[in-house]
């Protein structure tokens, strides 16, 4: 990982902008008595707008709480003891970087956990900021470059970032091993799906080692779904051609349904409804362990055993399945004071075990699968180390 950004200016500037501004004295416009008639109209309209907006936001947690006043406090003095760290977040606003656009899995998890994490930290608010782009690399780069005071956290893409790292993908300016890992809430299973009426099962797929290449679809060479598909087809020796020119699932799935190709990989939640309606078939889970409620679909590891692959190839599938199961990695920039990281990890654990959180996740059909910060950090380390075995299979033909 040679391309770690150590540009101090950029980091300082980015974090300065990302933080909350202590408000310096509230100016209330009392109607503009001394304004001229015309600008009085303007002021009245603005006031009307404000009133409506204030009403709309009155019940917002962040609106009801006082604005953070002390974010600019020097962290050095308070980072030493655990006692001061436990109260560090009280009344402060935490910035949460979502490495994808509005709407979508990464924001969904952030939104889901926001009230419970806010409560567990004692923070005044969590401010969710979207930094989409580069798959999810832009947000990860941003988080990596943020000020390590513990007030900026985010949920980065475990699988995508590990693949990006082991494949030395361009655009990576972070060192995944150095993030301060907080924990993981989820286990979104990625699945390989086919258009209904083409390939019915994994058994049929692995028998297709001869004949015309199957056409697979993916959302860009940087996406984990692309990497996982290429690895699988290479390992199973299935002739394929991959069309990786879709911008996202919202263009890729219609492409699959209208016949651009026959296979694609996606998060289970994105295809659940289509599968239930019989429009796509779920062939296998790109995981080492079957997801709860999805036991009828074999994992890629099981399919590898069924196909009597060599031990080396089965290991590749194992490592790939492990990487694909990493989930949303909640993390802070490298160098967050240990005491504060401990507070973040504890609050995170409290939040994901909150009955309210569990119920809300269940309603959204999201699978909660908590992993602690240290455990997840170890998993990521080993994925980064063993990840090299997948590299030789991750080149598209």
């Amino acid at each position, binding site marked *: 990982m040679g391309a770690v950004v150590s540009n101090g200016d950029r980091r300082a500037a980015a974090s300065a902008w990302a933080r909350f501004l202590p408000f310096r004295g509230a100016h209330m416009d009392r109607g503009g008595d001394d304004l001229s008639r015309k*600008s009085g109209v303007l002021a009245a309209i603005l006031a009307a707008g404000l009133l409506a907006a204030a009403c709309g936001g009155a019940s917002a947690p962040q609106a009801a709480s006082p604005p953070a006043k002390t974010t600019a406090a020097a962290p050095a003095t308070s980072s030493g003891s655990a006692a001061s760290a436990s109260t560090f977040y009280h009344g402060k606003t935490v910035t949460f970087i979502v490495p994808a656009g509005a709407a979508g899995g990464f924001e969904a998890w952030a939104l889901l956990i926001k009230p419970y994490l806010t409560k567990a930290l004692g923070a005044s608010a969590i401010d969710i900021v979207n930094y989409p782009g580069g798959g999810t690399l832009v947000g990860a780069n941003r988080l990596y470059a943020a000020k390590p005071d513990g007030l900026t956290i985010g949920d980065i893409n475990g699988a995508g970032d590990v693949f990006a790292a082991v494949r030395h993908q361009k655009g990576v300016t972070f060192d995944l091993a150095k993030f301060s890992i907080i924990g993981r809430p989820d286990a979104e299973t990625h699945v390989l799906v086919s258009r209904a009426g083409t390939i019915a099962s994994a058994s049929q797929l692995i028998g297709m080692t001869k004949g015309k290449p199957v056409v697979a679809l993916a959302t860009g060479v940087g996406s984990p779904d692309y990497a996982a598909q290429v690895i699988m087809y290479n390992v199973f020796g299935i002739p394929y051609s991959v069309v990786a020119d879709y911008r996202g699932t919202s263009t890729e799935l219609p492409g699959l349904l209208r016949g651009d190709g026959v296979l694609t990989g996606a998060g289970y939640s*994105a295809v659940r409804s289509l599968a239930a309606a019989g429009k796509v078939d779920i062939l296998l889970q790109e995981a080492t362990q079957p997801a709860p409620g999805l036991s009828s679909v074999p994992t890629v590891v099981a399919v590898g055993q069924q196909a009597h692959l060599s031990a080396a190839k089965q290991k590749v599938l194992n490592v790939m399945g492990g990487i694909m199961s990493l989930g949303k990695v909640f993390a802070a920039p490298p160098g967050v004071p240990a005491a504060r990281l401990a507070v973040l990890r504890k609050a995170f654990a409290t939040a994901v075990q909150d009955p309210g959180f569990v119920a809300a996740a269940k309603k959204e059909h999201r699978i909660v699968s908590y992993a602690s910060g240290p455990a997840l950090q170890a998993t990521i380390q080993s994925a980064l180390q063993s990840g090299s075995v997948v590299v030789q299979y991750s080149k598209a033909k």
Partner: protein
Amino acid sequence: MGTGAAFLQGAAALAAPVAAGLLLLGTLAGTVVGSIPGLGGAILLTVLLPFLYRIPVGPAIALIVAAHASIYFSGSITAILFNSPGAPESAATTFDGYAMTRRGEAGRALGISAVATTLGGWLGSLGLLALIPVMGALVLLLHPPEYLMLSILAVVIVGQLRARSLTKGVLSGLVGFLFAFVGYDPVTGIQRFDFNLLSLYNGFNIAVVALGLFAISEMVRLFAAGSGDQRSGEATLRGQAAKVRQGMEDVFHNGWLALRSSVVGFLAGLVPGVGGVVGNFLSYSLARVGSRRREQFGTGIPEGVIAPESSSLAKEAASYVPLLALGVPGTVGTAVILSALTILGVSAGPLLVQRHLPLVFEIVAVLLVTSALASAVGLLLAPFLARVATLPGPVIAPFVIAVGFLGAWAATRDMIQVLALVLFAAIGFAFMRYGYSVAASVVGFVLGSVLERNLYLTEKLFGWQMFARPITDLLALIVVAVLAVPPLMRWLRRRGDTGAGGPGGAAARGRGSPERPVAVSRGERVLDGVWVAASAWYVWTARGYPSAAGLVPTVVGGAVLAAAVVQFLGGFLPRLRSITHGTGIADPALGPAAAGETAGVVPATAAATAAPTAPATAAPTAAPTPAPTPAPSATWPSAHGAVPSARRSAAGFLVLAGFAATVWLLGFLVAIPALMLVYLGTLERRPWPLALGAAIAMEAFAYLLFVRALGIPLPPGLLLGG
């Protein structure tokens, strides 16, 4: 459950007091926030998402769908009053809406907009209802070659709609494509044209591009034009109310046009990713082609507002089709609605219609109710809003600039993107000054990725077989026709004139006299040179990228370079100028003012189609149309008011740059009051109490709306933030 029962259940969900209250709240929030450029759409809706956790499904749908549907009318309000579309897709409303405001008919335009939006929303909702059984198949009808052609067609049509010449129209659209290729290429993982700035990894933000090109540039022009740009109009509320009523009646007098435009918008909206952007433009352009007053489009005529506004909500209703049918959102708004449905525990997609039919009906019902409610709220405010438009232009400028910068921050949370507003304002200013189409640039920007992705997909999946597809061929043919027919018609006309002589005025159209080359100013020659240099640099840079990432930028950049060279040569070769710098047709039909102007009188397509074939009929056809302004020109200077002096323009940009630098260094909450005080107090020499009042009001606005209500922290600035 029977369909009828499901419908009743869906409609009944709205009758509950909580649902009705939230529908009203959503409408109000959408109306307020939608009127702030950059904030509409995704931002408001994502701010609402956290509340959905605590609300049952029925009322929650009422809240979020109402907020979504009410954004569009208030986005049109700012398009009409300040040339600042709430969302890029509302830009077509600025063409005639803002021109009406400049003529003092803001109230009328708002009245038109309110009623037309409502009618479009109703028709769109009913269309959605009708399509529920066949939704899935419709979405899959179009394939990559069609998307490719649609994105080219959209850019070509919008370019020719407003630009002063063929090449200017083409360049306007293509430059939008070029800006769209900035940043990370999702397919290859390569960063392009990003100058190693983290802020540009994801390219320029659409809110920044649209705000800079439309709103901020127009504010600089208002400042530069100074008091010479005094707006006229009824200053009394009663007068404005009468105008609003007049506007509402305008729609009913043009009922057929409204109906047609709604249908066009709806059909366009069914095409995910493309239709939402181009629907309104398409309605506008078809309305113009089909109108007998087509040469007056762009000068502020009611038809020019009715067409895009009727399409505005119809296309949004249509964008629910891919969402409900397949669970794939076609627009940013529906992407957030998808999140909302997920939060509520409802999976969008085929199962939604099978298992939650009442919910689908509820969505339709909310769209129906909100279409009218948002307009009613807007209409109540319209007379007041219209009075804002009677303020002198230079006084409005600092308010819009401040709100625009705040909106850009909210949309991006990135200071480099906010500063890029100045760049796009400069481009927009130059474009307006020299008769380019900023709307085409914005459409090109939005569709750039659609073009690129579908070009690769077409190449991989179809190759030349793409031309074996009839819809593709038809679309390609239309592209060629839009570009080639106007010059061809002109050429034929010229041949006819020189050959046959003809009766009446034909003598006056003898060799050499009808089309005299327009003069080209020094500034324009400089701009033409910049085109060549910038596009050459772009192509050179793009060639350095690996082929999959560099091919499309190279091809499009090459097209820009070719057009730019022609454009540049046009500055020196008068024979080329009819396609490069517009025509100065000495046509009596277009009025003496137009004939004398250096500017092209109407956009190229209109020039050809509108020009009478027989000169003898020219005067009669033109006579019945009452010309509200002396020159029916769609482009600056005449439709856009006085030409600002170079000195004041430079001063305007200096103020803008100073404001941007202050925001960057000292933060919004210092920069905004400073702008108000310096601008109103010192530059405009308004009374100090007024400047102070404005400073306090805007400070309160920025703090209360952004920081408190929306929860968007404002950056403290590089110096104060440490």
